[in-house]
């Protein structure tokens, strides 16, 4: 009795659109019958195995929704408490950069869906190059994010008590928030703060976003962001944690999709078996959906 029966035909050769015949590597199972090699013995059919794997992925994605959900709830609660803080702080986010990143992620969702189509139609080239495109678009997203973050760091926009106020002190150095009166500084306070601000700060406000390598820190001057609300650190804590964990998901997705591309180059995926491509694709779409909500909440409203 041989464990390995013959490969009936190369999967690439056959017609993808009407491939009802399974031309797969067959092995003889414990029941003495031939089964596709990738089919686990506890599943009746490859179809059932695929569906089960996909349902498992969806359940994982639900936990992802709940992970980000906790942070969205934090956002909602703090926004309800301090509406003026959110209106003021969100002006520091670059709408066009955020919009660009939204389009980049949407495009990467398309390329992932297209890669799956490539696998379904046994088109290895379409599969491979769409996966590569997806990684490239994800990389673009991270590069834009890098520029957004470093620009904020130059302005002293750090999360929580590390946020640098216009007078050069961090929120932590201001003392307990409640000791600062009035909580939202009035016109005259802002004028007073502007006088105390380092002179470099005024240049930075004037010449916009010219972060040069010579004296990037001085050119912008920490605190030259015009935000005077001592609760600004709260908004940026939420911003950095939410976009940071989302960015981490993008990085993880880049690694996963790179592995898929490498595996697809070795001919591992075809219309007979492409479960990993499908599942990583689902993950990638959820990363996109999270950003679809993060973008308006942070940048627009």
């Amino acid at each position, binding site marked *: 009795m041989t464990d390995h029966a013959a490969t009936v035909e190369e999967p690439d050769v056959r017609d993808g659109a009407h491939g009802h015949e399974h031309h797969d590597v067959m092995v003889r199972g414990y029941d003495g019958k031939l089964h596709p090699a990738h089919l686990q013995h506890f599943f009746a059919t490859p179809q059932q195995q695929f569906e089960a794997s996909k349902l498992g992925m969806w359940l994982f994605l639900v936990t992802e929704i709940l992970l980000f959900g906790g942070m969205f709830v934090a956002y909602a609660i703090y926004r309800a408490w301090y509406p003026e803080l959110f209106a003021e702080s969100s002006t520091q986010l670059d709408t066009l950069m955020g919009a660009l990143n939204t389009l980049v992620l949407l495009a990467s969702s398309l390329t992932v869906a297209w890669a799956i189509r490539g696998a379904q139609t046994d088109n290895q080239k379409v599969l491979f190059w769409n996966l590569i495109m997806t990684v490239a678009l994800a990389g673009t997203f991270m590069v834009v994010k890098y520029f957004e973050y470093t620009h904020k760091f130059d302005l002293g926009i750090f999360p929580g008590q590390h946020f640098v106020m216009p007078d050069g002190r961090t929120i932590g150095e201001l003392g307990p928030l409640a000791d600062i009166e009035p909580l939202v500084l009035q016109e005259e306070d802002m004028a007073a703060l502007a006088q105390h601000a380092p002179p470099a700060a005024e240049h930075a406000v004037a010449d916009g976003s010219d972060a040069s390598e010579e004296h990037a820190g001085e050119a912008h001057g920490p605190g030259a962001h015009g935000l005077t609300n001592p609760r600004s650190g709260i908004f940026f804590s939420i911003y950095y944690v939410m976009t940071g964990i989302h960015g981490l998901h993008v990085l993880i997705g880049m690694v996963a999709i790179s592995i898929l591309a490498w595996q697809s180059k070795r001919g591992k995926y075809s219309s007979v078996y492409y479960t990993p491509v499908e599942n990583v694709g689902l993950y990638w779409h959820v990363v996109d959906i999270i950003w679809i*909500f993060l973008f308006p909440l942070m940048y627009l*409203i």
Partner: protein
Amino acid sequence: MSSHDDHNHEGGHHINDPSILIRTILVLVVLTVLTVGLALAERSGMLPLGGLSVPVALAIAGAKATLVAMFFMGLKYEGGTNALAFVAGIVFLAVFLAFTYLDTGFRDVFESGAAVPVDVQNAGQAELEARQQELNEVVAPPFVTSPDTLLLPNAPISP
């Protein structure tokens, strides 16, 4: 959505249709441009949406997410199991948000003073304690039984 003859390829896998993928991404891009346009118009004062701006932006985001889930993730083409899991997750998120808000949003209604943020509360408490401390430290002046002879040398000495 006519070209779904190949629906049951490979025992039920739906094959992504290029024309539907393209149409989906086009609608997604249009919705993105729309929501950015609305936000910029509102910011410049051209289009005061007021209280509508948040619901409108969220509705557009919800529409975009639905499109991604239906056509890119293929929920439209499968049985309801995966969709049920996904929707259940969103429902539980809504429960999470609603019940948290029932606490944080109505603290001033049910418990006066408790809606004050913790740091303000602590500062108020500290101030109260400081005042109490001050009051405790005040020593009552002694009763005057006889005139001070240093200040009033000519005062008659009491018998």
